[in-house]
């Protein structure tokens, strides 16, 4: 049966104020059922206070074959990290 059902990606917010995080996927006949399934499959141990689901087919992803072109050029640009400032001793929590 589940072979006929489309795939959904599930995002759970673990606490108010935090962002939704991708936790996995599941099959469901429609979006309403997908939310119920997400509740049953991914929140059994109090993992969340909010659920998002989205059809996997609706996600537009980067092409793995282009990974070199997309991500490699950033590798040698360490100056983009804000780690070259001298931080005064008085400043905490930065």
């Amino acid at each position, binding site marked *: 049966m*589940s072979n006929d059902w489309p795939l959904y990606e599930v995002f759970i917010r673990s606490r108010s104020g935090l962002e939704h995080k991708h936790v996995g996927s599941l099959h469901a006949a429609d979006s309403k059922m997908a939310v119920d399934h997400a509740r049953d499959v991914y929140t059994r141990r109090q993992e969340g206070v909010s659920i998002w689901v989205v059809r996997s087919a609706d996600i537009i992803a980067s092409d793995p074959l282009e990974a070199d072109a997309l991500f490699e050029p950033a590798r040698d640009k360490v100056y983009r990290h804000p780690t070259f400032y001298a931080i005064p001793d008085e400043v905490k929590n930065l």
Partner: protein
Amino acid sequence: MSAVGEAAESPRGKPGSGESSPEGLRPALFRYLLRLGDTSLVLGQRLGEWVGHSPALEEDLGLANISLDLIGQARLLLTYAGGIEGKGRDEDALAFLRDAPSFANLTLVEQPNGDFGRTIVRQCLLDAWQLELYEALASSRDARLSSIASKAVKETRYHFHYSSDWLVRLGDGTAESHGRVQRALEDLWRFTEELFAADEVEEQLGRAGVAPVLADLQPRWSSRMDAALHEATLVKPPPSPYPWHGKRGVHTEHLGHLLAEMQHLQRTYPGARW
């Protein structure tokens, strides 16, 4: 059941919202708690039979979640029953060391699972009833029963959401699924009269404000079911005149088989723990 451990904690009641039931009510309260506890226990066991066999992995977890909610309710209710009885029987003794004639569950819940549609019909009929019952029991004059019901009503709201959703999907689905749930409805409907048939136990507790008057629950249950059946394009069967008495210990042949499986371990290795 004690192996599950921490889930056994009794929910904190609203302090001062009620009191313990008076001494004279104890025999009736004991029987009443068995009726509620056994109904949840037997249905929880039935749903557990689906684990590993559901139509989809997601439904496997969905049914198992409901099963565990029901077994959790049974633990609270049977533990309380054992205390009221005062003979030293705990939840395990009541669950595993009684025979079918001592079980007081509604006849509906011991009926076999059949196909997924039949399980859904049975579940929806019972969920709608437990929803009305627990909502009413949340304001019971018995403080402990009230706190158990307040916890259970939240679980039951989701159970009804789940089962009524599937009832509509299957009833208003294909000709095959519609036919299956309609036949299941016609077969199981005869057990619904027992849900509202009060005897001396419910009448005594109803007068004392400990339990709701069962007949009062029927109109809301009926309108809830009517709405679900209508949306599911299912036809409500006519009332059945034959009264069932599961809660008085008179059961169909199915309960004994269910208990044989559920109680096998404790009967074979008395007192076994793990």
